[in-house]
């Protein structure tokens, strides 16, 4: 067996042969060689890998004394020095699935690749699915041989430092990581095929899983507007005239802060728009259209709002991916929060 990968297998108390629910509190046991389903795993690994150690842990032990359990796993892995860790499969067993997820992450933290298997709706996937390699299984151990075959294949690849291909090709559950790839048929053919499947009630697989955006709970209304500090933020591409800051006209790399404390209004002599998504000349004649400072000054005088925040935030919103927009939004919100702003007016174009 020289050259075979060293494999450590993790199973729970049930598959470790210790017992059912009554044994769910057992602490981590380290045993030599394969145990229970580990024998099937060994068969599936063949010459390529050897199950040198089996870790057996109780479901409740992992859920109730997580830190202690993971410290024992880490210690056991340090001493066993495996090339790859295999956990489970856990099927639809929730606590077991969570433990498998934790074991995989503990191994990965030591630089050891790991693979598990479980039902796609197992809490272990819901909690750790983006960080672990897991083969999707059915609900019950009837599928044990198939699941271990698939896991063994991935374990040999991972243990041999091979990079994994796309989830669908390799047979692991998608982790929410999207990369550029290629499919067999041209997009037009795929679109028509998908439409016909959908119309006829046949199964189809969207190439972009529905990934609903973050829902942001609205902040509480400004309690007392006439004492409030209101900030102005614009994605209309406002720049100082001549664009001395060299702000881009789209897909910005940063936002800019300008003080308007001494200004009554934005004059077209001093400010303009530089934005690739609309005809800028109208705004250039009155920049208050994209940052309504002059209107805010009227509201201040009338006592409707307390004051306009000294700092304005500006950038062009056009063509900015969600990831970047989220970061800009968080940073601007932090700026405003630190400055004690009560409310913000975001002017989009």
């Amino acid at each position, binding site marked *: 067996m020289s050259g075979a990968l060293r494999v450590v297998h993790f199973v729970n108390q049930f598959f470790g042969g210790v017992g059912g629910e009554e044994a769910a509190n057992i602490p981590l046991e380290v045993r030599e060689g394969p145990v229970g389903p580990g024998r099937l795993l060994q068969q599936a690994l063949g010459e390529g890998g050897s199950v040198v150690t089996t870790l057996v842990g109780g479901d409740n032990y992992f859920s109730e004394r997580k830190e202690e359990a993971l410290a024992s796993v880490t210690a056991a892995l340090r001493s066993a020095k495996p090339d790859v860790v295999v956990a489970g499969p856990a099927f639809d067993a929730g606590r077991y699935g969570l433990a498998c997820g934790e074991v995989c992450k503990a191994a990965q933290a030591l630089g050891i690749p790991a693979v598990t298997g479980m039902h796609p709706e197992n809490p272990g996937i819901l909690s750790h699915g983006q960080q672990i390699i897991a083969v999707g299984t059915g609900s019950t151990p009837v599928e044990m041989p198939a699941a271990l075959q698939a896991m063994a294949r991935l374990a040999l690849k991972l243990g041999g430092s091979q990079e994994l291909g796309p989830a669908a090709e390799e047979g692991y559950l998608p982790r929410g990581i999207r990369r550029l790839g290629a499919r067999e048929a041209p997009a037009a053919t795929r679109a028509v095929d998908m439409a*016909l499947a959908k119309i006829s009630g046949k199964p189809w697989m969207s190439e972009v899983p529905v990934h609903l955006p973050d829902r942001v709970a609205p902040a509480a209304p400004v309690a007392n507007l006439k004492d409030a500090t209101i900030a102005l933020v614009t994605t209309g591409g406002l720049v100082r005239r001549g664009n001395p800051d060299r702000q881009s006209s789209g897909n910005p*790399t940063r936002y800019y802060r300008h003080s308007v404390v001494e200004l009554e209004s934005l004059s077209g002599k001093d400010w303009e728009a530089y934005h690739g998504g609309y005809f800028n000349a109208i705004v250039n004649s009155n920049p208050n259209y994209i940052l309504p400072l002059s209107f805010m000054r009227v509201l201040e005088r009338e006592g409707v709002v307390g004051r306009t925040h000294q700092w304005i935030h500006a950038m062009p919103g056009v063509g900015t991916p969600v990831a970047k927009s989220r970061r800009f939004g968080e940073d601007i919100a932090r700026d405003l929060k630190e400055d004690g702003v009560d409310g913000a007016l975001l002017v989009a174009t």
Partner: protein
Amino acid sequence: MRLELGSFPVTDIVFGARTRWQDSVLEIDARALLEEMRSDPRITRAELELARPGESVRIWPVRDAVEPRIKVEGPGVAYPGICGRAIDTVGQGRTHRLAGMSVVEVSEVLPHDAGGDYNSIFYDMSGPWAEMIPMSKLLNLCLLVEADPALTIIDQNDAVHRATLKLADRLAATTVGLEPPQREVFELGPVDPALPKVVYIPCLHSAQAMSGNGSNGFFCTTATYGLSMLTPPWPMHPNEILDGAITGPYRIATSWHLANNRILLELYRRHGVDLNFAGVIAVRTEWTTMEEKELMCLQTAKVAQMLGAQGAIVAWDAGGNEFLEVVHTVRACQRAGIKTVLLTSEDDPTGGAPTLLEPLPEADAVVSTFIGGSGYPGGSGPASSQMLPAMARVIGSPTRLVGAVRDEVIDVAGPMPPPRYNDTYGFGRYSGVEY
């Protein structure tokens, strides 16, 4: 509506003493043709250069690519309406096309008059970028054309695009009176009533928001019978599109892509086989208010219902806020009981961000054509840091302005980051895949 499309393959283009198509070779009398281009006093430069597939050539800046097409029977002209051409309804009779080539409009004229406007598209005839785009597999006859910079952006655009169309017309005219080597008949004849009715809904950006006069001036953008402004959902027969009724570029999609629209041809070629192609609804995008956007979506679904659609394919030419019209059209169709597929590229997934600007649950059948920020397949790191290889020859301008405010000059022949790829009309196999 019956259209016969006669294809004249072009396997080589040679410069010679006359302009004719013979035995798949297109001979061009460049001097006579260019004289005609230059007879428009607005034109300050007109030159011709040829780029062949596989050559170490970069074409910059590319504004449009036009497949020479001409109507030899039936009303109207190919590419109707744009640049003052006749507006008769097209799609009937016989149209000839020169297949395997395009006339590439190479010009520094800016597409719109939005802030910081710039050109960004180039073609490589070899290397990784050439692998990605259908245009690099064509013989590209490049018209290097510039207009008087004192003119308005609209007039400059009209001048250079009119010259491009004039050249394409002259080349297509070489097939008049000849028998096409290949013919295909396009007709939405009666089919088995059990086959599902499917409509195609291309969503087209309107440059109206980028225009000072809000009028129908031609920018470097798509025009429907010449109209580029915001218009309500426009039902069309697919034959009209084969005759170029929607034409002009938007970003990487060109007139060539529209006339050879892969989605439209897929639906057409499966008409009577496994579906019933019920027609096209062209939707304009980048309306201003949410209410306007929503209205267009609801009206699109209404028209689709009137066409009897059971299914729809929605695609768009990619941008930002236009996605709201697009994905709300998907929702409106779904709510009207029409099973809808969205064909789109995805945004940058960095940080686990959703790759669709507004991912609605109704958009549950999506064909992904690319992932934003990916550059080219096999390229590592963000697109902006990936470099396409240097090319031996540049057709067009030798330099390009880059940087945040486009004031840094780079050598076009040298290493260059790839342009933003998109596949509005479904030619490619690229896709976002899950790891």
